[in-house]
């Protein structure tokens, strides 16, 4: 039964993730007085990219450069085995919160190594920023995980979904909201792919199918993180969970894309500093959780 559920969740994610991006593009267009592209546009883009041929820069390490997008893509797919998206699948025989975090770590790692292998200066600078951001983001995330673990007395999702209602859990979720925003490479924090100075950074040499995979990866990652935060909130066995979940996703994407449309890009050091401050807040939240509020 679970297996089927997981399969359905996976399929759902694969289909819906680009649509969510299309939806967000529509919202941003609306906030910028534009007619936006249609919601399907992201899907068309992906299909076009998958049709295009790929190229290999001559300074690149071919094998790594070519393999990296696939690993990146599949590692986030693997995370979908664990986090229930559409249907409430019990996943405690596969993995827990720690595993999800580290799978995303794997994704980042392979993404970055692929970029480094492309041998382009912009890619190196970009992935350098990416890793710096990842490390500081991980500090905040670590505190949140600690808080959640202390609150839920567990790390496996069966125990954690939904999180018991406390002050600390609310604050933790708020911080998680921020981390997710950072992790989903959105505008104030898309420093690694900053277009004006380092031209999409790590992605610069990637083209065609590779690029398509990496873009697809980003959309899947976003949906995954959405589902994570929603699962923490919505009771897993609730009959109306499905509707709540879908509404939640829509709300999240509206809020996120509004933020994205109305923030200027941070410089990398500013971003790291912000995350550092946030993690100090997280430390306090952790204390609150330990106290037991």
């Amino acid at each position, binding site marked *: 039964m679970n297996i089927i559920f997981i399969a359905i969740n996976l399929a759902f994610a694969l289909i819906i993730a680009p649509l969510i991006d299309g939806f967000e593009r529509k919202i*941003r267009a609306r*906030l*910028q*007085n*534009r007619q936006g592209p249609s919601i399907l546009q992201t899907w068309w883009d992906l299909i076009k990219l998958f049709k295009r041929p790929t190229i290999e820069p001559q300074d690149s390490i071919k094998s790594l450069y070519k393999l990296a997008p696939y690993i990146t893509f599949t590692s986030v797919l693997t995370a979908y085995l664990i986090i229930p998206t559409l249907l409430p699948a019990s996943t405690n025989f596969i993995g827990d919160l720690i595993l999800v975090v580290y799978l995303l770590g794997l994704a980042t790692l392979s993404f970055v190594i692929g970029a480094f292998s492309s041998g382009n*200066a*912009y890619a*190196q*600078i970009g992935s*350098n*920023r990416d890793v710096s951001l990842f490390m500081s983001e991980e500090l905040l995330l670590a505190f949140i995980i600690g808080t959640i673990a202390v609150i839920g007395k567990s790390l496996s999702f069966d125990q954690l979904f939904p999180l018991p209602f406390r002050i600390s859990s609310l604050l933790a979720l708020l911080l998680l909201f921020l981390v997710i925003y950072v992790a989903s490479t959105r*505008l*104030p924090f*898309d*420093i690694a792919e*900053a*277009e*004006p*100075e*380092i*031209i999409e950074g790590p992605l610069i040499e990637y083209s065609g199918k590779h690029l398509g995979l990496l873009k697809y990866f980003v959309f899947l990652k976003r949906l995954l993180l959405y589902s994570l935060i929603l699962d923490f909130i919505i009771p897993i066995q609730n009959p109306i969970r499905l509707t709540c979940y879908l509404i939640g996703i829509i709300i999240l994407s509206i809020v996120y894309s509004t933020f994205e*449309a*109305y*923030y*200027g*890009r*941070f*410089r*990398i*050091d*500013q971003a790291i500093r912000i995350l550092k401050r946030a993690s100090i807040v997280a430390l306090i939240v952790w204390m609150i959780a330990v106290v037991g509020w």
Partner: protein
Amino acid sequence: MILEILKSNNAKILRHDEKVTVALVPNDKLRTTAELLFKAGCYYATGAGVDERLLGVGFSMYHIFNCEVEGRYIIIKAVASNLKIPSITPIISGANWAEREVMDMLGIFFDEHPEPVRLILPDDWPEGVYPLRKDFRYNERPPRVEFEQKREKKPGVIEVPVGPYHPALHEPEMFELYVKGEEIVGAVYRGFHIHRGMEKLAEGRMTINQIPFLAERICGICGYTHNCAYVQAIEDAAKIEVPERALYIRTILLELERIHSHMLWLGVAFHLLGFESGFMHTWRIRETFMDLAELLTGNRKTYGMNLIGGVRRNIDENKKKGLSEILDKTKKEIREIFDNATQMRELINRMEGIGVLSKKKGREIGVVGPTARGSDIDTDVRRDHPYAAYGDLEFKVPIYKDGDVLSRFLVRYEEVLESIWLIEQALDQLPPGDILNEEYELPEHTICVGATEAPRGEDVHFAIMGEGNKVYRWHPRAPTYNNLPAVPIMLKGEKLADAPIIIASIDPCFSCTDHIVIVDGEKVYRCSLDNYLGGL
């Protein structure tokens, strides 16, 4: 007092009136004259070399100084004795490019020039072929010559190429940033990738009333002020009475152009800071001004309104009414947008204290326009050399002291509001009468200069009248030509992430700068601004 200086250096005054002073200075006195003028508060505007062999003089160099205190342009002429003229770059570093340009284009050599290498001509251009000499036909194309690239990698830094094709630059130019981690430890500029041969074209083929349309195409954004500058130069030479109404119409259009140019820049600035919605808002408002221009002139951008002696289209009553209505509306909107946008901390943080240019450095290089006003240099051609109708209108010149990107940003923002105010005044006081005066005859061999305050700064056109409805020599100088050398200074020690906004902060208009050159061919890295700006 200028006259004293010139006389004391036994210069021969060729022309002296309220606008322009032209003097022939003996070569041995050239440097002292230049120094004295510089000390007296005249700033080096530009220099132009002329092949005057047809006038029986030989090759000569014109150094054009902008004397703000007296509101006049001083043109020092020096005649080359067997192709040699003493260089004034050791005294005025601003003359570096001008003199090198003349070296490339006319083959006049400047003694003791610190850096006598090619600036403009590409490396595959044959030695000893000088495109601006009169015996070089305007449609001639010399053969390529082979050359070897000599260049070694810099260890310990990444050499980040910015351009020729880079989204941060909207025109093909080449910066090369030496980056350590995120910090820029050095920068190098290589320009002159665009080659349209306008000067040669104007001298070779065009009649005096056709050149305005060529001049308008020097710049893709602020073409009309070039057009005006040229027209003013000729009118100044021929002493033409331009109808009042025409002057007012010119003023209106100039300010309209300034507004749309600044709005464009502000939008781009937002875009470079990653604030896309700000970009959209700004350009949404800019669009109304584009439509206004279209309404008044029949085209969004290239107005084509000027002829020698006036303008071609009138502003009738209902156009006037529509104009003032729209202005009222948009003024409020602009205020709203920018007052709110400047409350967004992250934008301000990205601009505050970034890319600082000190007043002293700025004077040395001779930066102009908002770049200068951003670093506390109080200069504005509209006020110092009143042209068009600016004499009768009142406006204030915004000055900021910090010299960082933010102050340039604010200068431009305030200038937008000032321009709207100017247009409103001009519309109110728009005098009646005709708009074009075609009764004039053109003098021969008169040396004249016209200047306007382009959105990017002072815009100087130097011309010598020729026989029969032609110009003998025409040398426009775009503001970016003076501002570019400041960029590497601003870049040094900043973060790579700030490079685009810093480069953009002078509102560079590369094509305007490059318009002169006549050839194309594959450029390689050669000249480095740093070499004379105490660089890397």
